[in-house]
């Protein structure tokens, strides 16, 4: 496909890798924020092609992984109610809550449906006026414009049977949490290209400056990723702190203004708990009070939730770049994609799933 195939050109990737080898003089640890990039790196073996001086650690940019177990449990409680049609992106169905997942609810007779777009959920609400339709609105900044458009559309259509269960998180507060940690060892960041497509990258220079950490807006094809690494390594080697853009065909400094304005209109910032990590101040979005009628947490009685995590799962440390999946005693043994202990083993963006699917005996294990 145009704008995809040409960024997978093997000889160009090879040249960019050669340039990285030429530039690097000492060890550097970089973090790719986005789980989609983690999977691309593992799938194409980019981590193995890099000079040994460059270590990539994997960031928290997987909304499925960081959605707290409390919210998964709330989703399970709502989806179990007989008059409810519960809609979700497919990735969430196998995420373990306390003792079960959304697939279990469906197997027990719950009406749980996978949708491609949140507007599909609104359509289901239109077609089923006698039933409550709830959409599991998870995501980073990338997904916020789509999720909130479903609320605006339901409002415009006068629907009273549509609501969303919001689990929205933002990247900049997570960067503060990672860089502010006493255990941090990340020296440069590959910023998430599609988050920046929406938000631009004007939020990042003050963070780069505060922690003296260079960052590069990076895309998702192999060539985009090696270019992002190259630009970050060049800055590190030159002792230069800056935020550069290696994904200029999609990302501008300002981002998508129309999307940002709509987010401001519908969402307001809030503290948010990240699964395995804990509460990060001002790291989330929730619906503004004027959209309360579309807030599933207000609409349903969800008092009887007693969330419990697997004591074996170290996903929180993996999501902060402190550990890697093979460091976990349960990895590939008690915890597999068929029987996951944590969300990072389930999601198509989870680091544990990436290592499990693309693992190379003798190197990763």
């Amino acid at each position, binding site marked *: *496909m*145009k*704008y995809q195939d*040409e960024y997978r050109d093997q000889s*160009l990737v090879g*040249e*960019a890798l*050669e340039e990285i080898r030429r*530039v690097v003089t000492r060890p550097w640890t970089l973090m790719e924020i*986005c*789980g*989609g990039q983690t999977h691309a790196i593992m799938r194409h073996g980019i981590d193995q092609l890099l000079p040994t001086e460059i270590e990539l650690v994997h960031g928290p940019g*997987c*909304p499925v992984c960081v959605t707290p177990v409390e919210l998964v449990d709330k989703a399970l409680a709502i989806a179990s109610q007989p008059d409810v049609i519960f809609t979700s*992106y497919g*990735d969430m169905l196998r995420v373990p809550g306390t003792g079960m997942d959304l697939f279990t609810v469906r197997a027990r007779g719950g009406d749980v449906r996978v949708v*491609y*777009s*949140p*507007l*599909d959920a609104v359509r289901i609400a239109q077609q089923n006026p006698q039933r409550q339709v709830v959409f599991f609105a*998870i*995501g*980073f900044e*990338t*997904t916020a*414009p*789509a999720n909130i*458009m479903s609320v605006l*559309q339901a409002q*415009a259509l006068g629907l009273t049977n549509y609501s969303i269960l919001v689990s929205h998180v933002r990247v900049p507060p997570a960067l503060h949490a990672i860089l502010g940690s006493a255990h941090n060892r990340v020296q440069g960041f590959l910023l*998430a290209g*599609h988050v920046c*497509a*929406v938000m631009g*990258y*004007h939020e990042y*220079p*003050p963070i780069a400056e505060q922690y003296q950490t*260079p960052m590069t807006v990076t895309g*998702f094809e192999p*060539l985009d990723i090696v*270019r992002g690494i*190259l630009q970050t390594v*060049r800055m590190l080697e030159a002792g230069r*702190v*800056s*935020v*550069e*853009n*290696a994904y*200029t*065909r*999609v*990302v501008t*400094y300002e981002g*998508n203004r*129309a*999307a940002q304005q709509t987010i401001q209109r519908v969402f307001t910032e809030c503290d948010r708990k990240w699964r395995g990590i804990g509460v990060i101040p001002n790291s989330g979005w929730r619906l503004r009070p004027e959209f309360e009628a579309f807030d599933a947490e207000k609409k349903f009685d969800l008092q009887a939730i007693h969330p419990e995590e697997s004591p074996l799962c170290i996903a929180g440390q993996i999501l902060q770049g402190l550990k890697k999946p093979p460091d976990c005693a349960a990895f590939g043994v008690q915890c597999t994609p068929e029987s996951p202990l944590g969300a990072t083993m389930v999601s*198509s963006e989870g680091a544990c799933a990436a290592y499990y699917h693309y693992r190379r005996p003798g190197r990763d294990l």
Partner: protein
Amino acid sequence: MCLGVPGKIVEIYEQGGLKMGKVDFGGVLRETCLAYVPEAQVGDYAVIHVGFALNLLDEAEALETLALLKEIGEFESGLGLSGPEAADEISG
């Protein structure tokens, strides 16, 4: 989740008060919401995420990126960034 796929807008129409369109992903057509790219026209490429166009693709920048990468082999170590690249840079 943040997967975004480039596609070509082949049709634009209004539905339920929203700007919508059909987007061609290498032969597969999908309905897409274009509400956040009001400037979109038939023939434009956009990055699509969960049925929404996030942004239009900048063709000139796309070509520029490829040209730049093709030149990388010729770059001397330590030469640093060239003109168009420097313009993308924001001092931290």
